[in-house]
């Protein structure tokens, strides 16, 4: 039982990281990035490409994240910028199209066969109090996620960039009037949000496998987290991620084997039926 909890927390942290990016993008740009899972996938696949060419793990991870962020910037400039003032459905269709393009282009480039990224750590698991086994990679992943989330919090609360982002969240037109370069803030936010997804993709991709279709699963889990925790809420993404990770891990032990993935969607439906704004979300959501 404790083992399930520990594994669930590790996965949950990774979910939280993906969801954080999604939530950040929603909070600042006010768009739901349906292609978010594809940036997660790009992080993982780029990491694979770099490590399989002989580069060592950590520089490759940095390179993969950087590469993904470059793609994100290009996409924001070419696709999202022309649509800045468009309606929700139009933008949703655009990110959906991007998702389809990226996922299937990756399929052509990398092929459908899943790949394994070799872990930079030794394979001996660590034994924690309570008899819980965690691999060094899992521990690193959890620690890295916590560090990144902490850093994001500091950036948002205490740096000029973070303050500008929060200003745009509050009122985009007022921010423009005051002289903030709203377009630049959007681009930076989008890149950072996708970068967070890429980190998660690299970490989880090393723990499991990387393959082009991994994005769909990831984005669905990310949606579940933000719905559970509340869209646009930082702490909601963290809380929601942990909750989902735990629920899947514990639920997976109880449910028949094929049903583990259903936990996330049942939770989405349940939350939206009972408390649509999520656990920690503001009542922005228009409820009927």
């Amino acid at each position, binding site marked *: 039982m404790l083992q399930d909890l520990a594994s669930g927390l590790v996965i949950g942290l990774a979910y939280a990281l993906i969801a954080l990016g999604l939530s950040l993008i929603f909070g600042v740009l006010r768009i*739901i990035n*349906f292609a978010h899972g594809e940036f997660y996938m790009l992080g993982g696949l780029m990491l694979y490409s770099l490590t399989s060419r002989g580069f060592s793990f950590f520089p490759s991870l940095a390179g993969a994240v950087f590469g993904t962020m470059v793609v994100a910037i290009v996409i924001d400039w070419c*696709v999202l910028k*022309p*649509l800045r003032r*468009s309606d*929700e*459905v*139009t933008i*949703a*269709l*655009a990110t*959906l*199209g*991007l*998702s*389809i*393009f*990226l*996922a*299937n*282009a990756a*399929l*052509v480039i990398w092929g459908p066969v899943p790949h394994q990224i070799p872990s930079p750590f030794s394979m001996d698991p660590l034994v924690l109090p309570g008899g819980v086994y965690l691999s060094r990679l899992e521990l690193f992943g959890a620690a890295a996620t916590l560090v990144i989330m902490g850093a994001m919090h500091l950036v948002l609360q205490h740096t000029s960039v973070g303050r500008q982002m929060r200003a745009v969240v509050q009122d985009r037109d007022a921010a423009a009037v005051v002289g903030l370069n709203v377009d630049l803030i959007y681009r930076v936010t989008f890149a950072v949000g996708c970068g967070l997804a890429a980190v998660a993709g690299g970490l989880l991709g090393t723990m499991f496998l990387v393959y082009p279709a991994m994005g*769909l699963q990831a984005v*669905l889990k990310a*949606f*579940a987290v933000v*719905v559970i925790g509340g*869209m646009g809420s930082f702490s909601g993404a963290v809380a929601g991620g942990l909750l989902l990770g735990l629920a899947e891990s514990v639920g997976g032990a109880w449910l*028949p084997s*094929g*049903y583990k*993935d*259903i936990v*996330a*969607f*049942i939770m*989405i*439906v349940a939350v*939206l*039926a009972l408390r*649509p704004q999520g656990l920690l979300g503001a009542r922005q*959501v*228009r*409820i*009927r």
Partner: protein
Amino acid sequence: MSRPLVLACVVAAVALAAGGALPNVIGPYFMRLVIFSLIYALLALSLNLTLGFRGELSLGHQTFFGVGAYAAAILATTYEWPLLLLLPIAAACAAITAFAIGLVALRMRGPYFAIVTLSFGVIAQILAVNLVDLTNGPMGISGIGATPSSYLGFTVPWRSDIVCYAMLVILVFLSGLITFALRESKFGRAWRALRDHEDLAAAIGIPDFRMDLLALVISAAMAGVAGAVYAFYTSVVAPDDVFSFAIVIAMLIPVVLGGRGTIVGPIIGAFIYAFAPEYLRIAQDWRLPIFGLLLVLLVILAPEGLVVLALRAPERLRARFRQGAAEARE
């Protein structure tokens, strides 16, 4: 009867009449493309109701398609009921599913609604894979429609190209009629009002939840019928086929390509979606990425839809010509 209506009847009648000779003229390969175009057209008209009129992005229509397909498959293989009887049953099953999903999903708007409907699609797929007793699991159900039915001495082979083609022409025509009838009514006005200005619509008494549920249910019935015909035509339904996200793409592109909210647009869009890859000589692999890119480009450059643009082009050119002539005179 209005002119467009007469034209539609003529087109449908001609299409039906040609059905007998068509397979010999264009060959079985292109016949298959035509039939798939018609199935996509049904799906596109179905999505058009929620996306085009009401403006709600549903990413869950594959659920209704799949439910219709499985309902037809299960009843056909268990009781050997013919397709004709199964069409209304598939429609009803899909409609009931939509009602249930709508009660939950329609409490949210916009992207949340899209996410919930997508989730239900995934749940449906997982259920179809795991409820092996009912659905035969990941292998799916095969051998649908193997037995032809006899009516008044005529045997109707349900799986034949001609029969499926004829049924689909009639179904697409009926769906177009239904869409038109709804559009020019208080329901069509209510949906478009909700799409344009939700608060104003509420202020004049339009009940958003009920209208959205209605759109979802009717649209699901159409998708369910498409699923039933698909089941009979391909004779196999498997979870990865009928509940897959590829169906969503197959619905979205025709609607966005053809023009959201129009009736002819999605039908033409469906044909383009089915036939274009043939004529563009694209490697099979690159088809899907290009469709994704196409969706993005369409949304940015031609949000009204190409077909609508093409139909309006002559009058826009005429207007610009007149303007140019007027300026030249001065």
